């Protein structure tokens, strides 16, 4: 019997709509060219031996289902256990900003009741990190906590990140927003399966709240312990943090930690290796499969199948899958969403302080 099952709440919707999340849930936002945000939550669970994962779906789930499919890439196509697609709140009732809406969890009590694992690992998918759940399980058992939350001292001020008041390792309260150095919540926690069911019953009348909001008056009664994560973690809630986290991937030390120690799986595609012709110039960049580079790419992240024509320049930019940057065009301090063709001679230009977003074509 596996010790834990996983539950991913993929139905978080952003508070500040951006063109990147107009057409897709935050869980399936592309990251580092070939990944999507959900890959981290899913892979982290699978890497520590979890073989039963429920995923609470957002209302606009097309791209997410397309990506995770039957869970094959995460070895979740199984006879026992595997990937469970769970319904989320109906359109219009999900609250923005809530990661662990009680109603979504209560909807899916059957998923929790049908397994007999001791623990449930619960994660949203708005963060990029590679964590070993076995360490959290061990801390959870050692401390005898009801809930163990994954935290890290905030590296930046971020209004979208939640943070905890923590006294001697025990959580006393939660607030929206994190200032530098606050105990940021990495939107991941471990809880006893039966304890979670019990909490869902307790708060059944307040199911419009987030679990941690519902706990607000009860932190003395419910023992919530913080577990400090020492590795690289980056939130990707909004345009600026999303851009910054992608650019962090230009540091091979970070990508080594994130992708090489325990693998992050993603949907497999039959992409060719990237191709570079004579005259191409590429530096400090990440280039995905099926890209064809004839021009110049610097300080950028390119998704699958991007074509940068002769004389085109991409600098300090994220260019997503299937875009073509035509000859003489220039993309700078910008995020170019999928399938855009940037015409000859055009400039798509933001600044370091104000990254421009070109919506999906």
């Amino acid at each position, binding site marked *: 019997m596996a010790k834990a099952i996983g539950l991913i709440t993929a139905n978080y919707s952003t508070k500040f709509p951006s063109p990147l999340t107009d057409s897709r849930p935050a869980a399936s936002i592309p990251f*580092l*060219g*070939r*990944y999507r945000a959900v890959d981290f939550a899913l892979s982290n669970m699978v890497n520590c031996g979890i073989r039963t994962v429920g995923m609470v779906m957002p209302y606009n789930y097309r791209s997410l289902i397309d990506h995770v499919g039957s869970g*094959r*890439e995460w070895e979740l196509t199984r006879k026992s256990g595997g990937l469970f697609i769970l319904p989320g709140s109906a359109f219009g009732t999900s609250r923005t900003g809530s990661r662990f809406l009680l109603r979504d969890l209560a909807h899916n009590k059957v998923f929790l009741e049908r397994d007999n694992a001791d623990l449930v690992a619960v994660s949203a998918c708005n963060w990029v990190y590679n964590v070993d759940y076995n360490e959290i399980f061990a801390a959870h058992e050692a401390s005898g906590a009801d809930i163990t939350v994954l935290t890290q001292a905030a590296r930046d001020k971020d209004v979208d990140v939640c943070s905890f008041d923590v006294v001697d390792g025990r959580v006393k309260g939660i607030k929206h927003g994190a200032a530098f150095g606050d105990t940021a919540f990495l939107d991941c926690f471990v809880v006893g399966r039966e304890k979670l069911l019990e909490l869902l019953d307790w708060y059944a009348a307040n199911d419009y709240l987030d679990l941690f909001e519902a706990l607000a008056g009860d932190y003395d009664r419910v023992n919530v312990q913080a577990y400090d994560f020492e590795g690289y973690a980056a939130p990707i809630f909004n345009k600026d943090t999303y851009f910054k986290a992608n650019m962090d*991937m*230009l540091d*091979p030390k970070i*990508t080594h930690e*994130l*992708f090489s120690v325990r*693998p*992050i*799986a*993603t949907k*497999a*595609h*039959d*992409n*060719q*290796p*990237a*191709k*570079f*012709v*004579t*005259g*191409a110039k*590429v*530096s*400090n*960049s*990440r*280039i*995905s*499969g*099926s890209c*064809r580079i004839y021009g110049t*790419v610097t300080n950028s*992240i*390119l998704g699958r199948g991007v074509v940068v024509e002769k004389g085109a320049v991409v600098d300090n930019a994220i260019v997503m899958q299937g875009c073509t940057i035509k000859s003489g065009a220039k993309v700078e301090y910008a995020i170019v969403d999928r399938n855009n063709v940037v015409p000859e001679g055009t400039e798509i230009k933001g600044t370091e302080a104000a990254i421009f977003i070109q919506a999906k074509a």
Partner: protein
Amino acid sequence: MSKKELLAMLLAGGQGSRLYDLTKDVAKPAVSFGGKYRIIDFPLSNCANSGITAVGVLTQYRPYLLHSYLGTGSAWNLEDGVAILPPYATQTGGAWYAGTADAVTQNLGYIEMNDPDYVIILSGDALCRMDYADMLATHKANNAELTIAVMPVPWEDASRFGLLVADETGRITEFQEKPPVPKSNLASMGIYIFNTDLLINELRLDDANPESSHDFGGDIIPKLLADGRRLYTYKFEGFWRDVGTIASFHETSMELLGEKPSFDLFEKDFPIMSNTLSLSYPPAYFGPDANVDDCIVGNGSKIYGDAIHSIVSIDSVIGKGAVVKDSVLLPGAIVKDGAKVINAIVGENSTIEEGVEFGSADAGKDYAFCGNNVVIGKEE
């Protein structure tokens, strides 16, 4: 098991001894090629792109990697799957595959189980893009019993090949194995479509013949010709390369490069598929001083130095100040800082130590190569 029109039998048991250390640990069809592929991806993709749904893969030499790579065949969208067919024992004993025909003879049960109308025999170690459905259409149009894919070769090289002499309708009149005086320049590609009944019948006869070397080219085809059977050619004019030697492996790799390569991996109509399920590397990284000129580069690789006119496969590394030129780095190869790799093939997960020069710019010299999992230091 449902009836199939065309079943593929893919001969993948060869050692590929002329690839030396590249096939020390793996069968030739499992050797990496083209940045992220293995040689067997090409015939398997052809099968899938031709509408074939079931492929029997005959394996024998060093099969572990090949077997695990093939899996169920779902990576190539083969809905009836890949059947891995190594030699096996029966109540009357068992034996290694003695020849190409013997390998198929020992697996006639697999063919009978699938009950196809036609069987296509493929080689697991050549590189081409070929529509087997078109070949089958030709086979049917000719009302042939056996169709052999042929390609025109230069007349001056013709005597190195098994040649087929055909009349104006494509009917084969004569087979010449490496003749001193060629009567034809149509070389056999080792790709055959048989009517299933004929194949089964002939293989049983061949099996019982103690004189036979149990080879399609050497025994089966000459006998069918002598019997007056309807043998036809299928002329193939596209890209086809045997990658069986170090030189042809290197040169064919280089043919993937350039703006208009002879073999274009990016051709959309006939995609090359591979088993990428286990390959979740991040996109290739290019350092601040990287220089990449006329290359293909796989995911997970890290380039800090110069990559010129080369294949940089998945998960390989080119260190600071290192130069890789006119070379092939197989997956996981590491070229450390300041090393130079020129006109060479570096095996999977092998390392060229700092400052070492591997290979030579001298065009008169043979290509340098090393096998998998080796370290090339200063003293070698």
